[in-house]
């Protein structure tokens, strides 16, 4: 090689605390500090118990939202996919004796629910990948379809009357850790591994930044898109089953308000709204921040609606802080060079 070249030493980025994690962690510390000072009851096992039981529903749905966002898309059908999955379990249980149904019926219900969730995602993925229609429109269509279907099947009412052995799935503890939290953490761990270490995860990021260039590099981008939405649907089904066990009933429309909060949690966790960048761990921390905030406000006697308003303010604040941090970093960099 005749031309001169410089190969600088390869520096690995700090693995634990990278830039996208710093923001959510700072928010986490701040929320903990403010509420601990505001009310002595905040730092109690009751607070964390309530967070640990509430976090998983939103968390699982956020994981379902994360993958499509990373590819530059969106899945607006997550909550209704979860409802349909819950309905599937409920239907199988009712077909097999309702409160008297056995674990085998429940197992069958879970399998069918997962299949229903995956099918919802699969259909969206196929339409998005092959027709190149916009994910927002496709998932909106799926959302309306599932809502209509669910309301038609349930006539708008609640389905309840499940066997008692399902209760621990929503309310039980194993070694002092709530079962839903275990399910969520396992799923989050799986997502983290998938995104950071597998071919699928790698391709998701690449497609999110430039789908055409990824296809020119020999990646089956359609297959990746189909898989992304299928996995998203599957994750919705898991969320739906957990929600069913928590409420001990299924109603179409349960958790509907979570839809946009999942998008918010992703952005709070540093995910690029246009796709290509974002990691699981910061999103999980962001989720914890949101949940602690809402529980803390609850403890202070504020209404749930106020908590929602505070979530919105938090997102705006995070945007402004990110911009400020960028300015400060640039100024420091300039000073360092002088």
């Amino acid at each position, binding site marked *: *090689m005749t031309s001169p070249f410089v190969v600088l030493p390869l520096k690995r980025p700090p693995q634990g605390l990278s830039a996208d994690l710093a923001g959510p962690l700072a928010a986490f510390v701040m929320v903990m500090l403010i509420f601990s000072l505001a009310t002595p009851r905040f730092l109690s096992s009751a607070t964390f118990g309530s967070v640990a039981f509430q976090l998983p529903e939103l968390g699982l749905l956020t994981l379902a939202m994360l993958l499509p966002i990373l590819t530059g898309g969106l899945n607006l059908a997550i909550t209704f996919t979860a409802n349909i999955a819950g309905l599937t379990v409920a239907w199988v249980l009712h077909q097999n004796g309702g409160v008297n149904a056995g674990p085998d019926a429940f197992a069958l219900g879970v399998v069918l629910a997962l299949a229903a969730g995956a099918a919802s995602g699969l259909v969206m993925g196929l339409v998005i990948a092959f027709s190149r229609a916009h994910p927002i429109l496709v998932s909106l269509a799926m959302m309306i379809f599932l809502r209509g279907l669910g309301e038609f099947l349930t006539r708008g009412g609640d389905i309840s009357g499940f066997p008692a052995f399902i209760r621990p799935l929503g309310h039980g503890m194993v070694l002092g850790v709530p079962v839903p939290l275990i399910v969520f953490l396992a799923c989050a761990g799986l997502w983290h591994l998938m995104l950071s270490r597998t071919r699928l995860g790698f391709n998701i990021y690449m497609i999110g930044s430039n789908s055409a260039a990824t296809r020119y590099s*020999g990646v089956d981008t359609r297959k990746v898109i189909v898989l992304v939405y299928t996995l998203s649907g599957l994750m919705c089904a898991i969320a739906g089953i957990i929600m069913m066990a928590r409420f001990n009933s299924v109603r179409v429309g349960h958790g509907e308000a979570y839809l946009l909060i999942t998008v918010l949690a992703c952005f709070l966790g540093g995910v690029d709204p246009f796709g290509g960048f974002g990691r699981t761990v910061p999103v999980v921390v962001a989720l914890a921040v949101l949940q602690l905030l809402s529980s803390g406000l609850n403890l202070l006697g504020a209404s749930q609606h106020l908590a929602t308003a505070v979530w919105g303010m938090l997102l705006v604040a995070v945007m402004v802080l990110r911009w400020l941090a960028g300015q400060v970093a640039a100024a420091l960099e300039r000073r360092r060079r002088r």
Partner: protein
Amino acid sequence: MATAQPGAAPAPRPLLSLSDVSVTFGGVTALKGVSFEVMPGEVHCLAGENGSGKSTLIKVITGVYRPDGEARISFDGEVYDQMTPVAAQAAGIRVIWQDLALFPEMSVAENIAFQEVVGGRPRRVDHGAMRETARKVLARLGTSLDLDLPLRDYSIARRQIVAIARALVGEAKIIFMDEPTASLTQAETSHLLAIVRTLSREGIAVVFVSHRLAEVIEIADRMTVLRDGRLVGVYPAREMTPSRITELMTGRTFDANVRARSHGTAPAVLAVEGLTRPGEFEDVSFVVRRGETLGITGLLGAGRTELALTLFGMRRPHAGTIRLDGKPVRFRSNRDAIRAGIAYLSEDRLSLGLIQPQSIADNLVIASLGKVMTGGLISQRRKQGLVARWVGELGIKIGRQEDAVSTLSGGNQQRVAIAKWLATDPRLLILDAPTVGVDVGARAGIFDIVARLAAEGLAIILISDELPEVYYNADRVLHMARGRIVGEYDPRSIALPELEAAVYA
């Protein structure tokens, strides 16, 4: 280092002058103690290899980057301690970047005059006034275009004229043109040069950043040459020859000998017969042998890229056969082609060749991810090892592997793209316009790589509309026109001017 000469400066006081400018990014020095001066109405040429700091210098002048230390910019009699993009625009400094930064969906008039209607208080968009502004500016350039057609209906050359027209709206005093001739045919280039002369007569200075050396000499009054972020010197343009410029830019002399050799007995890696896609190419037949570099040239629209995409499995032939190592192949997608050992370097590096926002490392391993996986998972260690190997092998200048590939210069990006394909262990490498947006020295470096790969036995198809490139670097040259192969030439038995006459006839 040569001393700066006043050259043919027409006016005593420079329009623009900077002295002792240094810029560093992270650990990389982009500019070191560079001075730069442009006279009013001068056509000035800023020459340098990729990564020599030309773009950085333009960005300092336009206030995008702030130089280290106390460097000051003086423009049109004013001294700026700190130039900003807004101040630069207001003072009459304009830049036309290579990508033009236009709005393809908007009309010609809107593209030219949009700055008159954006910014400031909200007010109604006055389409009549916009069309009037656009018409006047285009008339100044001696051109008329349909003002209401969307820009996407126009060729790159016309779009460039629109970009120039937009730069002239308001009081332009100096226009920087970044690689303006990179995607133009010769006729379009001479039209552009005529426009540059018109501007110069009006007293507008034009700083021309070009890699086509013959044109550089023809058009410029003076030339500033940068190398590795330092000033080499300022020279009167008429004293320059292409080889002298190359020498100054690279610090070494070039041996521009024809590289062609015969590969008559080597086994054929690729044999194409009667390949046809109606409307794109017809009845194309040729052979590429082991270790051979086959040049394919012809004007844009001759069907070269369509042919390459068909060989790469991204389009299906309607008729004809493709044989790889003697066996007929039928690809359902480019994945089949890659598996069979075919690699295709896209002509469009910015949007198809590389994934610009993603890291150097990820771009390099994307096509050969299987090589860095252990037990179904990507091994960070193996990935870094593979990337480091190719970075070293192809002499790619990078900061960190995790940096976005968009932070690299054109030539280094192209090396990353080549490394990406070499990592797939191809038997046939198709290079489609591999030097678009790559500077002279870096081009030579890329062809050194191509020659080395060919010597190692790789079969290479080199597609380019720059005749000297295929002439000097290919073993055989095929001429494509309107979808057909209309001629085959051996560089050893034809002179370059004859080949040019044959192709441009």
